[in-house]
């Protein structure tokens, strides 16, 4: 006899976040938006893409963790979030395995 009831084991617990946190996150998001616009006007070479994407990731993380309560959610919900990011990366990276290597063999082979 297993005393543990499967249905109970994954229950989320209500977590009420103080309002001030929402305002702080909102302020951070607005500041980051301004930063990303500003950074776009500075020539950072190849880094421009990295900075823009980096800031976007931070902003998305703020929304996910606080607005969407993932920081306070069950492990399962956190796993769903991580899994979907992981699969998105699979789609990107493995597709890139073709596109990045496109020049490697075709060029010298077709030159002669």
């Amino acid at each position, binding site marked *: 006899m297993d005393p543990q009831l499967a249905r109970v084991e994954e229950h989320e617990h209500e977590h009420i976040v103080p309002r001030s946190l929402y305002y702080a996150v909102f302020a951070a998001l607005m500041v980051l938006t301004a930063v990303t616009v500003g950074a776009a006007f500075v020539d950072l070479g190849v880094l421009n893409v990295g900075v823009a994407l980096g800031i976007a990731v931070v902003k998305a993380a703020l929304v996910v963790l606080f607005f969407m309560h993932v920081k306070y959610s069950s492990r399962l919900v956190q796993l769903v979030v991580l899994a979907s990011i992981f*699969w998105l990366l699979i789609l990107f990276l*493995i597709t890139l395995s073709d596109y990045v*290597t496109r020049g490697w*063999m075709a060029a010298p082979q077709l030159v002669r």
Partner: protein
Amino acid sequence: MSPDITPTSTASATVTAAGAVMPARHYLNESGGWQSWLLTTDHKRIALLYLFSITALFFVGGFFALAVRLELLTPAGDLMTSDTYNRAFTLHGVVMVFFFLIPSIPATLGNFLLPLMLGAKDLAFPRINLLSWYLYIIGAAFAVAAMVGGGVDTGWTFYSPYSSMASNSRVLTGAVGVFISGFSSILTGLNFIVTTHRMRAPGMTWFRMPLFVWAHYATSLIMILGTPVVAITILLLAYERVLRVGIFDPNIGGDPVLFQHLFWFYSHPAVYIMVLPGMGVISELVAAFSRKNIFGYSFIAFSSLAIAILGFLVWGHHMFVAGITPYSALVFSIISFLVAVPSAVKVFNWTATLYKGSVSYETPMLYTFGFIGLFLIGGLTGLFLASLGLDVHVHDTYFVVAHFHYIMVGGTLMAYLGGLHYWWPKITGKLYPEGWAKLSALMVFVGFNLTFFPQFIVGYLGMPRRYHMYPPEFQVLNVLSTAGATILGAGYVLPMIYFAWSWRNGRIAGSNPFQARGLEWETTSPPPTFNFDRTPLVTEATHSYAHEEARVA
């Protein structure tokens, strides 16, 4: 166990059900009228709606298969024009893949059994479950409209730029049908995942779940994470076809290989959407008809997950000669070989389950033996296709056609039929006629091999797929194949007849005619609308046959 079960008399005899009675009220007679079916939220009734609709679509797809096989009797294109032939094989593929194989086991057996096996009253979102059936029907209606309106001639793969720029057929209508039915599949997967996580009966821990549920959980992962990619790809294709935008068309800057990447990102894992539920069914059948807990439970469970995950990394093996780089091909090839390992693990575990079992040969078990044999050949020939140097030769030949029919028809369809026979008493409360069922299992097995084994040979000889006319030296093998298809077709019609017959006239089954284990056998046959008179409390793993005698005593 329930007292109303008479044990089976001998190993080979058909199940006897003397003394079994139908429950007074069950999900089939709880309410009547067409609204009670078309507006039902009962997962069991929705499963039956799916059963009827996919069976209808199966015969539509089968009709086109027959047309293709008849045309290929002779090397010349004498039965129909090339355009008609191209539409026939396209519609065969589209209907069978998107409207039969993908929903087959999950939407019927999965829908019916998942809540029962978990001890739940329904799926987590019953209305979404109904919605997904309607989406399936709307998608199928578009597919049928495409057929009636002149057909689609792109092949089920919809390769651009042919589909987006060149084809004069009903590509858009067909694509919309596939797009909509994709969301049916996504919603089914969503429902299964949430149900598995949130609706298990008390005590039903992850490692007590039937392997059928594990397989469906893995399948649902693919449905959720893969299907949307093909949906957007189809949408982009429609965008391109309507507005000539040039994402895939190289003449205006696009890349046709990108279409193939995005298409196969889903459509390769989709093969596992088709076969994983079949593996789940087989895991149940092997245990039930060996009266034994499955050998290496956790290895089978995790191999399902491994297949689901690794299956996402191998799509490029459809594209070895499509213009991807050899380096990329290496990556896809090595991971493709890795997928073979968990599949092999499953086969070995099923085999080992028979060891010291109590094996009986009822129809579902015959389908199981058939599945193991055909899946072995299908899986092993997958190695041929995964190995780069060999794939260059056999890619897009009948070798490939034979390989994936061994997996999808030899695997999925055998498991589907086996599962349908096994759970038929649960679904209808009636037994199927064992003699006829054994005959049809035999016909399917023989007919299948006769149809598709010659295709390996003709494929290695170099006959390309989707050929309306072919060089005369391939004729003998093609005639064999068509002959086999005839037997196969008869083998498929037979169950439809005796299943329909048995629904009214079959003997009453009782709640557990096979003396199998699992929560679905703990309730009546057919089950009540909310599945269990009392919510079960699970105290041990699903297939604990060895304790049964003690428990009965």
